């Protein structure tokens, strides 16, 4: 009697396991981050105001290096943003890119060279397993690849994710920028912005990108717009390296945002 019950229970368990093996959960494909594709149709918006306050802002020292994907690599936003992060911290941890300084003595970042940066980018491309399982990189491979590189150069790297669902820990981000740390943004398709200011209006140009993309944020700005009735709009942006030649640097809006993750990078 007990044996029969045991066999039935075991059989049920086996069935459940088999069912789970076939369920779509196990066939879940990780999100892949690829190169940026800007949709050709741009949107423009004009915000009219009587007064504007954009005094609340902070940036890392001299921003962040912005690099373009080197030839021969594809879907390489992970490697490009990774090399920007490595070059950003190379100023403070010089063995991150051996035999090359990513910044001048003044602190300003050097241009993308044709030897060292491409070498770092290609190594990250491989370490991040870019285009191995599918196009681009997964979040896990991105983080592991960057960690492998930094560890290999003799340093430690820590990630602090400040995104949870639809919310972002804005205060932690502000503190990070003020403390001269950059943030890796992993975003679903969204928009980058450029803002052209005039005396009583801001023209905001939006560039929509069509695939999940990774960028590096190195500062923030809060723009408060006032009219005769008072504050009517507040936009909060991170300034990011776009991975594009024009615009090289752009704004990413975080209220609201479309981030799947955002990692404050700590290297020591």
């Amino acid at each position, binding site marked *: 009697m007990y044996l029969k019950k045991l066999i039935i229970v075991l059989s049920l368990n086996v069935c459940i396991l088999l069912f789970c093996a076939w369920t779509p959960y196990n066939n879940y494909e990780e999100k892949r981050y690829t190169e940026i*594709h*800007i949709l*050709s149709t*741009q949107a*423009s918006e004009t915000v009219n105001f009587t007064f504007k306050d954009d005094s609340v802002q902070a940036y890392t020292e*001299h921003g962040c290096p912005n690099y*373009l*994907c*080197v*030839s021969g690599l594809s879907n390489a936003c992970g490697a490009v943003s990774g090399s920007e992060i490595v070059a950003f911290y190379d100023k403070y941890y010089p063995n991150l890119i051996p035999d090359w300084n990513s910044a*001048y003595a*003044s602190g*300003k970042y*050097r*241009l*993308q*060279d*044709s030897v060292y940066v491409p070498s770092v980018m290609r190594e990250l491309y491989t370490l991040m397993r870019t285009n191995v399982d599918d196009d681009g990189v997964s979040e896990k491979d991105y983080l592991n690849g960057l960690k492998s590189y930094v560890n290999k150069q003799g340093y430690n790297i820590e990630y602090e994710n400040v995104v949870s669902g639809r919310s972002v820990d804005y205060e932690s981000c502000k503190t990070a920028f003020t403390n001269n740390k950059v943030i890796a943004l992993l975003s679903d398709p969204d928009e980058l912005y*450029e*803002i*052209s*200011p*005039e005396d009583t209006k801001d*023209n905001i*140009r939006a*560039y929509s990108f069509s695939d999940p993309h990774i960028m590096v944020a190195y500062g923030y*700005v809060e723009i408060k717009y006032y009219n005769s009735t008072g504050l009517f709009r507040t936009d909060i942006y991170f*300034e990011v390296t776009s991975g*594009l*030649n*024009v*615009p*090289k640097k752009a704004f990413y809006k975080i209220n609201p945002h479309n981030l799947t993750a955002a990692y404050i990078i700590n290297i020591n």
Partner: protein
Amino acid sequence: MKKSNIHQLIEQQDKDKKDEMFAKFEKEHNLESKARVVRYNKKRIWAASIAAAAIVICVIIAIPLLLNNTNRTHKRYFSIDDCVAVDLDYSVKEYAKEVNKDFLYIDWYDIAEEFQTWLFVNRYNSEDVIYINETIVNGETGDIVDLYIIDELTTMEAFSFYEDSCNRTATIDDVPVNWYYRNRLSTAMFKYKGYKYFVVLQEPMEEESVLKIVADMIP
């Protein structure tokens, strides 16, 4: 001898001989006519062949010239996604010489800490250069400037933001210059001899510092 005279001579002969001579004459005459036709066609064929060869040679010479002609006569439009970056290992100054164009450039090469030049080519035709970008770092001042060059008939969507934003005006050596300053970037735009130039100065000491660079560019 004329054909009518021959006929008269034949008429003077007796009947049998006459028929025989007529037949012989017609035979020779026909052969001679055919031979003439053939000779005439050969000349025409030769002439046609020479003309055709000349046309083919002209076409062979003209096609590369047409393909390499960068003096555009029609407007065209590109989005960011249409472009692919190609790292040029030398300066705009040298590139201008290579392609025989009078590009303006920022002549800091002797004092440059470094510079980098990219050609942005058509994704679908790598021979087609859409625009040029050179970033140059002044070794004396530390200024970092981006120069973009595009011909006036080509519209690159990403530059339209600069064109819309440059709402302040200046005139340098009779050349109208539009410019603006935003968030640690000072940008100027002007046209010169068929090309549009965008000059972007990072972290300028003064908002209008970019105009000094433009003034040094214009001959």
